[in-house]
């Protein structure tokens, strides 16, 4: 554990010199906050048109009328809750983006600096090395997600109709942000680890790792189109699928991160 902590310290010191790594994630976070805020609050306020008067949100209204927790809200609040809650799915891209950038930089950066061989000459085990790399990407990913989520909730609490905020901190959102989000981030991270062992450019690793975004984007679109409703059981089922995917990626990562493969085949 002491060796993992030593390497984590190095990774964080290195990250402080590469703060631009976090720009894509901050951009995603900004979009995730600004777009629902514009749609649910600012545009109706500026145009004077109520969301509940628009035929665009009839489906949303119908769906939310079925949910007991929304019955306390007026139609306008129910549609706002619909918008803010659905954009939470996009929010899961924040940890995914951080994890991909940091992991790709952390592993390919070591390859480019030819720093892995001296590192492997120390008593550190391959598992500790991989563990430190994964944690170094996962911890800031989760920290940034929690930070931006707090801002999101603050925005909802201060700008949306009364009661919308309380709906948003229900079990659905918690499952989405605290279970699905970290698991998606871990999948992206492990994907980046696997890809990083085969490419020499962080951008390539990020581009390949970006395929993780596709299922999340698909989930978002399916939700908006009414094809799927991310209830707690559905979210947990998707999370269970991600656990399986992560286990497979972890196995693949350990195979690819083999000490001998790093020394003899990573060029």
């Amino acid at each position, binding site marked *: 554990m002491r060796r993992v902590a030593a390497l984590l310290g*190095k990774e964080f010191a*290195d990250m402080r010199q590469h703060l631009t790594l976090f720009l894509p994630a901050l951009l995603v976070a900004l979009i995730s906050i600004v777009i629902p805020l514009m749609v649910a609050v600012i545009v109706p306020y500026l145009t004077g048109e109520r969301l509940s008067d628009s035929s665009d949100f009839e489906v949303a209204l119908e769906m939310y009328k079925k949910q007991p927790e929304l019955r306390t809200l007026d139609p306008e609040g129910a549609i706002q809750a619909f918008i803010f809650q659905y954009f939470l799915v996009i929010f899961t891209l924040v940890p995914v983006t951080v994890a991909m950038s940091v992991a790709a930089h952390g592993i390919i950066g070591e390859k480019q600096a030819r720093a892995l061989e001296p590192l492997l000459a*120390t*008593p550190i085990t391959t598992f500790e090395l991989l563990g430190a790399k994964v944690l170094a990407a996962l911890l800031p990913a989760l920290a940034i997600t929690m930070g931006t989520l707090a801002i999101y909730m603050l925005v909802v609490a201060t700008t949306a109709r009364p009661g919308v905020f309380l709906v948003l901190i229900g079990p659905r959102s918690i499952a989405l942000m605290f279970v699905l989000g970290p698991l998606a981030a871990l999948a992206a991270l492990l994907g980046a680890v696997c890809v990083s062992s085969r490419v020499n450019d962080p951008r390539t690793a990020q581009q390949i790792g970006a395929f993780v975004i596709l299922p999340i984007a698909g989930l978002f679109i399916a939700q908006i189109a009414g094809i799927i409703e991310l209830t707690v059981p559905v979210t947990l089922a998707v999370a269970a699928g991600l656990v399986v995917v992560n286990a497979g990626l972890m196995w693949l990562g350990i195979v690819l991160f083999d000490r001998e493969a790093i020394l003899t085949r990573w060029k």
Partner: protein
Amino acid sequence: MLSASHLTRRFGERLALDDLSIDLRRGEIFALLGPNGAGKTTTLRLLAGLIAPTSGSVQVNGEAMTPSSASRLRGRIGFLTEAPGLWDTLTVRQNLLVYARLYGLPTPGRAVDDVLKLFEIPDRANDRAAELSKGLKQRVALARSLVHNPRIVLLDEPTSGLDPESAREVRELIVGLRDEGRTVMLCTHNLDEVERVADRVAVLRTRLVAMDTPRALRDRMFPPRIRVTLRQPASSFVDVIRRAGFGNVNADDTVLSVALDGRGPGTPDLVRRLVEAGADIEAVEPEERRLEDVYLKLLHADGSVQ
């Protein structure tokens, strides 16, 4: 201190190292020579416990390197890789501190201070690695490989790409390590460097071609010769010398080159015969063959010479 017994390593179908047995002694500089792809780096990696042998074994202070002991035994070895591999965004001190912690030193800060002093770079401690010259980076990498005070040090191309002054500094540091009683294995293409610092040399071409002291290898491949510079043409003295029992004699302008086989007459006899024959001798000196000649002859010789 460090020994290898019948060490063999294959990468798929390719045989990288074949049946190498060596024994490194305390306080010696052991140089590993060989052409590219001869298995030098593979040997260092095997000895450092970075990769496992296909067959054969490595022992560190009598303890066998196994998958379960490798992590611990790596802590007893300092390994300078071919590229410095420093983290550019971190300072010199931060680079060293991470390694001191990875080696589990009880007072990592003090160990870093000590090694900075040893390498005379405390004033560069807070410089980013990216700002350092190539020579200084190599110095820091060497400091990193010694931060845990190992008694065995493996150096892969320590002066590669350095300017002559930096290379000399690194060579002095290597000699200093030997003087402290450490065992140093040096892997290099720089034969001049080996000539200057190595106590023993092994020539490798997948398998061991030869291993001995530079002097013994030189004597084995090129029997000692005496070079006599005269003030008159040397060719007129060739017969005189041959009659005196010196079999292998060459004359070139005013220089006579005479082989000594160690059993027949020696240098005093040679000088006496020449003076008696009227030679005006300007200089008498042993004819030194460079290690490069020895190395090339060894590699081109048929079969291996043990």
